[in-house]
C-alpha cells in the first residue's frame, strides 16, 4: 500500500496554524493553574491544591495574575476564532438533533462548517464566563482593588466569581472530553493537521471550502 501522504487526494489538511496552537495551549495551561488555585480557595476539601503554586499565600498572590494572563491570551484566541463561531440556521437544527450527536449518528446531521454548534456554544460560554470572572475578580482582588468597592458589592462579586468559575470548569471538562470523543481532534490541536476523511466526516462544509480554495472551480463566464 502506498504512503497516503504521497497521494495528493489524501494529503492532510491544516486545521490550526502554529500560532493558533500556541495560543490555545497557553490558554489551556494557564487555565489549569488558575482553576486549581481557584478551587483551592473555593472548597476546604481542595485546599491541598494550593501546594501546586507554593502554598496558600502564594496561591492568593498568583491566582489573580494567572487569571489576567488567561484572559489576555483568551481574548487573542477568541478574536481569531470569532468569525468561525457565528450561529447559523443549520447550527440550530444540529442542536435540535442532540440525540443523534451523542449517539455518533453524524450522517443524519446537517453539514458542519469549521466548528459545529456544540463548539460554538462552548465558545460563547467561555466568553461569558471569562468576562464575568474578570469583572468579579477585579472586585474581590483585595490587594489592589477591593478598597474601591463596597462590602455588599464584594460579596455579590464573590458569588458571581464562584458560579461563573463553576460553569467554565464544567464547560472545559466537556471541551476536553469532546477532544477525546471525536478521534483525531487532539492531533488537530497538537500537530495542527487532520485527515481529509476526518474533515469530510465531521466538518464537511469546511472541508469543501478548503477544497475549493485549493482547487478553484473554473469560471463560467
Amino acid at each position: 500500500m502506498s504512503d497516503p501522504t504521497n497521494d495528493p487526494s489524501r494529503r492532510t489538511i491544516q486545521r490550526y496554524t502554529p500560532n493558533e496552537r500556541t495560543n490555545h495551549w497557553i490558554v489551556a495551561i494557564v487555565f489549569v493553574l488558575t482553576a486549581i488555585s481557584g478551587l483551592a480557595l473555593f472548597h476546604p476539601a481542595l485546599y491541598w491544591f494550593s501546594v501546586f503554586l507554593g502554598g496558600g499565600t502564594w496561591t492568593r498572590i498568583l491566582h489573580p495574575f494567572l487569571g489576567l494572563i488567561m484572559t489576555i491570551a483568551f481574548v487573542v484566541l477568541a478574536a481569531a476564532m470569532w468569525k468561525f463561531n457565528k450561529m447559523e440556521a443549520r447550527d440550530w437544527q444540529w442542536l435540535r438533533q442532540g440525540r443523534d450527536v451523542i449517539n455518533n449518528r453524524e450522517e443524519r446531521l446537517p453539514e458542519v462548517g469549521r466548528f459545529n454548534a456544540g463548539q460554538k456554544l462552548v465558545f460563547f460560554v467561555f466568553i461569558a464566563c471569562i468576562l464575568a470572572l474578570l469583572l468579579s475578580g477585579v472586585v474581590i482582588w483585595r490587594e489592589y482593588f477591593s478598597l474601591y468597592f463596597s462590602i455588599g458589592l464584594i460579596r455579590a462579586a464573590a458569588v458571581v466569581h464562584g458560579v461563573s468559575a463553576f460553569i467554565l470548569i464544567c464547560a472545559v471538562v466537556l471541551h476536553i472530553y469532546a477532544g477525546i470523543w471525536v478521534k483525531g481532534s487532539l492531533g488537530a490541536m497538537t500537530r495542527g493537521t487532520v485527515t481529509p476523511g476526518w474533515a469530510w466526516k465531521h466538518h464537511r462544509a469546511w472541508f469543501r471550502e478548503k477544497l475549493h480554495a485549493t482547487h478553484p472551480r473554473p469560471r463560467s463566464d
Partner: protein
Amino acid sequence: MALQSLDIVRRSATTTASPSVRQAQTGTVAKLIDTTKCIGCKACQVACMEWNDLRDEIGTNIGAYQNPHDLTDQSWTLMRFAEYENPDKGNDLEWLIRKDGCMHCADPGCLKACPAPGAIVQYSNGIVDFHQENCIGCGYCIAGCPFDIPRISKRDHKAYKCTLCSDRVAVGLEPACIKSCPTGALVWGTKEDMQHHAAERVEDLKSRGFDNAGLYDPPGVGGTHVMYVLHHADQPQLYNDLPADPHISPAVGLWKGATKPLALTGIVLTALAGFFHYIRIGRNETHESDEQAAARETERARHE
C-alpha cells in the same frame, strides 16, 4: 494570636468536627460595653496598644475627637463619636460614644468566609481569634464580617482584629481595655453575668427617662461576646451605624454554603458523564470509507 491553652471549638475551612470533649462548663465570657457610662477618654485604646504592642501611624486632626479615623491593622479598638440631636428631647445634643471592635459573634461571618484552614478559630469560651500564621491574606473575612471589623495589614498582608485579649483570658486575666476603663463602662465576666448586669443597668436607665434603653446582643449572629448597653437600643444605627439586625449576608451564605458541595458535585458529574459516554457509546471515529469519500471529492475538485 499563636495557639495557646484555649480549646478550639470551630476552625475555618475545616469540614470535620473540632476536638469538642472539653466544654466551657462555667459558661462563655463576654465584655459588656456600657455606652451610657463611657466618657470617651480612650484609655481602652491606649491599653490595647500597650498590651498588644501596636503603634498606629500618627494621623491628622480633622477637628473631631475620633482618632484614628477608622479601625486599622494597628488599631483594634476605636471610640466612635456621634453627635445626636434628640428630637424627643427638644433637639438636646447627645454625645453617643461607642467603643468599636470585634463583636466576637457566636456565629462568626469571618470564620465562615475564610478559605485557609485554621486561620480563624473560635474557642470554647466564645472568643473568635485570628491565627495569622495560617492567614493567606485574601480578605474574605472582611466580606464575611457583618460589622466591618477585620483589617489587612499593608506590611504583611495578614488580617488583624481584636483578640479579646485571648492570651490574657487564657491565664485568668481580664482584657487590657477592661483593666484601663476609669468609669466602669467596660465590664468583664461570664456572658450570663454580663446579661444580668446589663439588665440592671437598663432598668436604671429606664427609671431615668431612657425608655428605649436596652442590651445589644444581636440574635442574627447567634448573640455576641461583646455586648453594648445602649440608651437608644431601638436605634442602634445612631451609634455610628451599628447595624440594627446584623446577620451573615445571604450572599456569603450562598458563596460559602450551598455552592460549595453543589459545584464540586456538578464538576464530578460532568466528568463522569463524559466517562460513561465513552464506556456506553464510545468514540466517534473516522473510517477508511470516510477517507475514500473525501478522496473521491478531492479528485473531482482537481479535475473540474
